[in-house]
Each structure stands twice: as C-alpha cells, then as structure tokens.
C-alpha cells in the first residue's frame, strides 16, 4: 500500500469519485428510513403535496398514540413472544450442536456439516405446506409454539455454523484444564466454553431474533386468528385496509422496524463477523 504523506491537491481530486460514491451509498441506504420516519411525523397537508417536502415544522405524534387503540400492541406482543421463543430455543440448539461439531470426533462429521449447510439452502416454500399440515394435526395452529417450530429450521443452520466457528477459536486447553480439576465434560462446556463464546452466542441469538421478527410467509400461514397475528401480517393487513393512510402506515412501520434496527446496531460488528465467517467457510 503506497501511503504518501504529501497531501497534494491532485491526490485529493483523485479521491473525489470515491467520496461521491460514499455520498450516493449513504443516500440510497438511508433515504427509505428517513422517508418512513418523516412521513409518519408529517401532517397530511405536508404528505400529499406535488413537490415532496423534505422536512416538517409541525411534527405530529398523534399517529403513534392512535396505534395504541388498535390491535397493534397485541401484535407487537405476539411478535415479541415468537421472536424471543425462537431466539432462546434456536440458540440453545445451535450452541450445543456447534460445540459437538467443534470439539468431538463425531463420525461423519463432514457430512453432518454439509447437511446443516444444506438446510440453509432449502427454499421455504418447500417446507410451508407440510409444516402447516403437521402443525394443524398437532393442534398448534394459532399458537406461539407452532410458529416457533416453523422458525427453527430457518435459524439454526447459520447459528450452528457461527457457534462452531466461535468454539473453534477458543483454545481447548482451557476446558481440558477445568476437566483435570475435576469438572465434567458438560461442566466444562457450560462454565468455560459457553461464557468464552459469548460473542458468537449473541450474534446467533440476534440473527435468530431478526429472522423471526421479520418473517411473513409462515406467520401468514400459521397465525390466522387476528389476535395471534404477528407484526408483519398485521402491518400488511393494515396497509391493505388503509391504503391511503400513508402517515399511519409509516408510523406502524417505524414501530415494527425499530426493535430489530436497534438490536442490529447494538451488535452489528459481531453479527457481521459471524455471518461472513459462515458464508466464507461454507
């Protein structure tokens, strides 16, 4: 890498296309977020204008407060329960399986790893019909457990790969030392390996949360009762019913997006690291 210390004008000019590209990327990535937030705050007289208004002097919060009186809080709670359930169960499964695949000489380990990877490659439409039939015959339609069961196949595959790569990064000597001191294999896993793999654990947990929070197709299929619907389904119905109430729809979209965006910003670096490792090693 050639690093010249003299910052000549020519050099700066040569960097100009780069900064132009940075500006374009920022605008394209952020504008939909900005526009969603702004539309949710603008009074209707500022929304329906031939020339869009890119700021507002009279922000309105009434759309957010009026969401309270609809079924939206209930849908929010449903989403929270389903996403939390998927996260807890999915991460537990991913952590134990990832540990087994990282530390033990399991027969056919290579094929097991490929099998786990193939799960990630299965199109969801192939699963949706039989899972619906299975969940209906188990009497779990319109139940949190039924939807969580559908979300496990979508989240554990990448979770297992992420956890495995994090466990591989921890020197096994630490667990061996604990076992010399009398800890059982399982004890070493819980007390030594798992706390050290905390970054991987949080990354796969957030991945599971984001995936299940955002998912539409299975939610549409399993939750048919309006009191059990999760946010993607409810928002889509809200949008279809109040097609021209753009301000209200945008306020609902903001509420729907805020938790996952917040979670994402909290752990983005680890999450990205884990996902990229999964993709590259896969």
């Amino acid at each position: 890498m050639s690093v010249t210390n003299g910052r000549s004008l020519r050099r700066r000019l040569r960097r100009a296309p780069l900064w132009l590209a940075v500006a374009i990327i920022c605008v394209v990535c952020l504008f939909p977020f900005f526009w969603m937030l702004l539309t949710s705050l603008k009074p209707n007289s500022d929304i329906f204008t031939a020339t869009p208004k890119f700021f507002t002097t009279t922000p309105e919060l009434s759309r957010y407060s009026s969401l309270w009186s609809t079924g939206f809080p209930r849908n929010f709670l449903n989403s929270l329960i389903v996403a939390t359930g998927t996260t807890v169960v999915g991460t537990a499964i991913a952590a134990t399986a990832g540990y087994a695949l990282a530390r033990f000489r399991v027969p056919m380990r290579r094929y097991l790893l490929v099998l786990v990877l193939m799960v990630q490659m299965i199109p969801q439409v192939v699963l949706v019909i039989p899972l619906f039939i299975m969940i209906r015959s188990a009497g779990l339609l319109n139940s949190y457990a039924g939807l969580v069961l559908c979300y496990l196949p979508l989240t554990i595959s990448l979770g297992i790969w992420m956890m495995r790569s994090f466990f591989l990064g921890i020197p096994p000597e630490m667990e061996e030392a604990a076992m010399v001191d009398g800890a059982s294999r399982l004890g070493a896993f819980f007390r030594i390996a798992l706390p050290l793999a905390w970054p991987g654990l949080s990354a796969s947990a957030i991945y599971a949360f984001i995936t299940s929070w955002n998912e539409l197709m299975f939610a549409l299929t399993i939750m048919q009762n309006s009191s059990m619907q999760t946010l993607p389904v409810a928002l889509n119905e809200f949008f279809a019913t109040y097609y021209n109430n753009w301000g209200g729809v945008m306020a609902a979209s903001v509420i729907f997006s805020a938790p996952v965006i917040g979670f994402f910003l909290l752990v983005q670096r680890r999450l990205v690291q884990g996902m990229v490792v999964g993709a590259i090693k896969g």
Partner: protein
Amino acid sequence: MTGETLPAARGRSAAARRWGRHLDSTALPWLLLLPALVVILGLVAYPIIETIWLSFHAGTDLSTGPFVGLSQYRSLADDPDFRAALVRTIYFSVFNVVATMVIGLLVALVLDALRSRGRLLGVIVLLPWAMPRVASGIVWKWMFDAQYGTVNWALNSAGLHQFNGYAWFNSGFSSLVVISAAWIWQSVPFIAIALLAGLRSNPHEIIEAAQVDGAPYWRLVFRVRLPMLRPLLVVLLVMSTIWAFQAFDYFFVMTVPPGGPDHSTEVLSLLTWLNAFSLLQQGKAAAIAVLTFVILAVATLMYVRSFREATE
C-alpha cells in the same frame, strides 16, 4: 494442577470417573447434537419428502386426496400462467442476482478503499438488510407512488416528464422494476460485506507487487484480487440466486392482489403459497414447490462443489 486438588471429583470413585469419561466421549456429542438433528430431520427432511409425496396426489381444501401420479406435473406443463411465472422467476432472479453482485462489488471496493475510515459506512450499508421486508416494501411502494412519490418527482424534475404521475403498479413489468429495486436494496448489503471480508483477506504482498508493476486499479481488481476470491464469489452467487427464487414478501406486500395486476407479477414462491392457502389446491402447490426445489438443488450442488474446492 496437581492430583491432590480435585474438589469437584471428591467422593467419586475412580471407576465411576472412568465410566463418566467414556460416556463423555461417546454419548455426549450425540446428546448435544440430538436437538439439532430432530429439527433437521423432523422439520426439514420429513417435510421435503412429504411435499414430494403430496405432489403425486390430488388435494383440495387443505386435505390430501387420491394418488394421481404425475398428472399435477402434466397439468402444470400445460398451464400458461405457471409457464409465465417460471420464465418470470428465472428472469427476475438472473437480472437481480447480476445487479446485486455488481453493485455489491462496487460497494465493497468503496469500503475497501476507505480502509478503517469505512467502519461507519459499513454499518450504514448493512441497515437495509436488517429492516423488515414488509416495512421496506411499503416504504418503496410509497416512494414510487404515482402522485406523491419522491421517485416520480425526481424523474420529472430531471426532465423525464413521461414519469409525471406514472402509475408503476398498473403493469406487470413496471411493478417488477420497483420490486427489483427494493429487492436489490435489501440484498446488496450482505453481498457487499461478505465481498469486503474477502477483499481484505487478499495478501498484501501480492497487491503491492502488482502496484509496483504499475497495474492500473481495475486490472488489479479483475486480474489479481477477484480471481483469488473465486470460491467466495461462487458461494455468494448461489446464495443470492436462492434468495431471489424465494422472494415472496415484496411480491405479497407490494402487488394488489398478490401477483397482480392480472397475474402479471406471479413468481414461483408466490404461486406456491397462493395455490396452497388461497386457492386451496394443495397438490398443485406441492408440485410447484418440488419444481422450485429441483431447480435450486442444481444450484446447491454447485455450492457444495465450490465448498469442496475451497477446502481442498
């Protein structure tokens, strides 16, 4: 770590400890793998087989009817709506995958050129990936609104007056343009960040050697740096193809009725769901799902093969 300090093992006989160690190395790994295997076999493998089985049966009103052999597939072959959807899905996937890879590469090169100063931009780039697709689909539809949309306003201001009040969702093709824009916006982040990680793994010595030789920037990228990432490129190509084939949310949210106007935006994933749960034609839906699976299985084989090449 001497033998006399074994507090946890106190009270256990040597034989019990040995037995415990034996169990730890044979039974424990399977015990740890059991929940994952139950999910993979019960909630993935079995449903795939069930879908194939269902596709050989008549099925209406969400119950399975008599065995009909290949007739579901035969009637699909004669169904113009299905054939149109198949072709549309392939076009949609090829175009969007190529666009996503090209844009993803450009974004990755920008991030790479910024080095450590690009950290904040990296977070900004990934935000669209985390946004729920139902929400971003609605926002994109609002931005492309005929009368009050920012896109029509911008195009009109740029002198393209034919876009003044242009109703994007009145025809299949222009609907697909908007859906593609939203889809690419959502898919580029992951591709870009994965490519960035790949570019950063390029050995410095090779890049420096090429720079000393006076290789221009683009030749350095295409002749030196990207060829080193071939396994990653194949992986990302196949992954994004699978995402494109599965695209459901944007179609469902943005077109009215889903797949409309007049079936002109139906793609395979949407067609499967609509047949299964809206038209209640379970057997037909299963057959479409199986065909989707077969098409993507070819892509998955490529994926596994590239995985082998990457590890060897």
